[in-house]
């Protein structure tokens, strides 16, 4: 479980986030949604420590992250996996080497065990055949899957996914979404997905946090979200004519 308490973040006096409170549950896919520029990425980067918060606290299963020193943070980071918007695979390494990378850096396994673990993760995302290819030789959807395999290689307790569907077609998106959900449930991971894709939210969102104007404007489940009376959230969810139509038909 990850808890965010009274988080504030400003850049050079310009406030981007204020009074953010949120809880992300284990074994659940927790969404952070919101319009472009609302502060989703900044919030995520604060939680994982790529940005320092201005004030507030972040608790990883009760462990206060913001006040930790470098070494203590390093220990927490090894429990975090992250899938990046652009996959962020290392171009100079093969698919297998990418997945093995965190293991070679931190694991205390033999070379054989590392290979075995990496191959297991690749198999989990149905990519065992591509292990010898370089990231530039595989499609965007495959890169995302390799990204997932690399993120779970160290058996993380926490998984962050930044826009896992950006640049993917709807069918591939669903494959990635389902993979994220299955892995979350299977390994009881606390998963945080940043997205503005309502399809994924409806598909796999357990807890949903709607970020608006620099704070959590609304939170609820995917059943709540379709029936919401909140004006801003409504505008966000029913942005397209297609969804407006569906809402109309649902009554």
């Amino acid at each position, binding site marked *: 479980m990850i808890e965010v308490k009274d988080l504030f973040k400003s850049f050079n006096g310009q406030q981007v986030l204020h009074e953010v409170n949120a809880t992300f549950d284990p074994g659940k896919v927790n969404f952070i949604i919101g319009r472009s520029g609302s502060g989703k990425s900044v919030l995520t980067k604060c939680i*994982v420590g790529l940005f320092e918060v201005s004030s507030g606290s972040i608790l990883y299963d009760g462990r206060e992250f913001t006040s930790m020193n470098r070494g203590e943070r390093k220990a927490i980071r*090894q429990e975090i996996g*992250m899938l*990046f918007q*652009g996959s*962020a695979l*290392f*171009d100079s390494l093969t698919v297998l080497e990418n997945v093995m990378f*965190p293991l070679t*850096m931190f694991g205390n396994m033999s070379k054989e065990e590392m290979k075995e673990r990496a191959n297991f993760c690749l198999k989990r995302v149905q990519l065992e055949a591509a292990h010898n290819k370089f990231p530039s030789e595989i499609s965007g959807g495959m890169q995302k899957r390799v990204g997932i395999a690399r993120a779970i290689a160290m058996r993380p307790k926490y998984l962050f996914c930044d826009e896992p569907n950006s640049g993917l077609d709807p069918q591939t998106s669903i494959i990635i979404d389902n993979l994220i959900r299955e892995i979350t449930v299977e390994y009881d991971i606390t998963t945080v997905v940043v997205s503005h894709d309502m399809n994924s939210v409806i598909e796999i969102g357990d807890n949903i946090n709607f970020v608006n104007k620099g704070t959590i404007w609304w939170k609820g489940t995917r059943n709540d979200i379709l029936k919401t009376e909140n004006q801003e959230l409504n505008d966000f969810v029913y942005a397209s004519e297609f969804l407006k139509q569906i809402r109309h038909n649902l009554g």
Partner: protein
Amino acid sequence: MQLFYHTGRYFELVFNAFRRPERFSIYWKQIVHEVDKIGVQSVGIISLLSLFMGAVICIQTAANIDSGWIPAYTIGFTVRQTLILEFCPTIIPVIMAGKVGSNIASEIGTMRIKEEIDALDIMGVNSAGYLILPKIVAALFIFPFLVVISMFLGIGAGAVVGELAGVVGYADYEVGIQYDFRPFQVIYAIIKTLVFAFIITSVSAYHGYYTKGGALEVGKSSTQAVVYSIVLIMVTNYIITQLLLV
């Protein structure tokens, strides 16, 4: 203000790069890889340039002292001094700043904008150390070899061209390159080379590491890396020379 900001951030990055590595074996592998990329792959161009520079310096010196009063061995002497004191330890690093510096900045800059550096940081890897330290160590190791190779080739080319062009015979040239030889000058050259190797790799890495934006900015970082490296080389060249030779 900007200057203080950049200087502070530069030293912070260099300090972080020198933190204890997570896995020595992986750093070792990276160093070997970088020695090949930075050093071995530059031997060709360095050799070519040194041969021509040695030849040109020889002919120019000869042309300028076309007088019976100056002994012929002066040509060999001048070629040696020019190459050992300035051309090899300063101009070769300037050329390397163009070749290696831009390469380092664009490599690290691309990793930054593709979030690969964030990926390293999230994993708990010291990204500064993993990406930058091997390059610095590799350059410190290989630059002196390149410079010494350059010295030999330049002086050798001078001898051959002097003979072929008929401006100075082998015998006179040989006397010249041995005349008043002070080994300290070679040490001075190596010290300069080491300082410049450090400047090129760390300054270029700095510009790459703090790239923001997209492909266009990577290009800008790469240019800045080269410009700042060369300016710093020239300034420190003056300081070191003042300290060591005066």
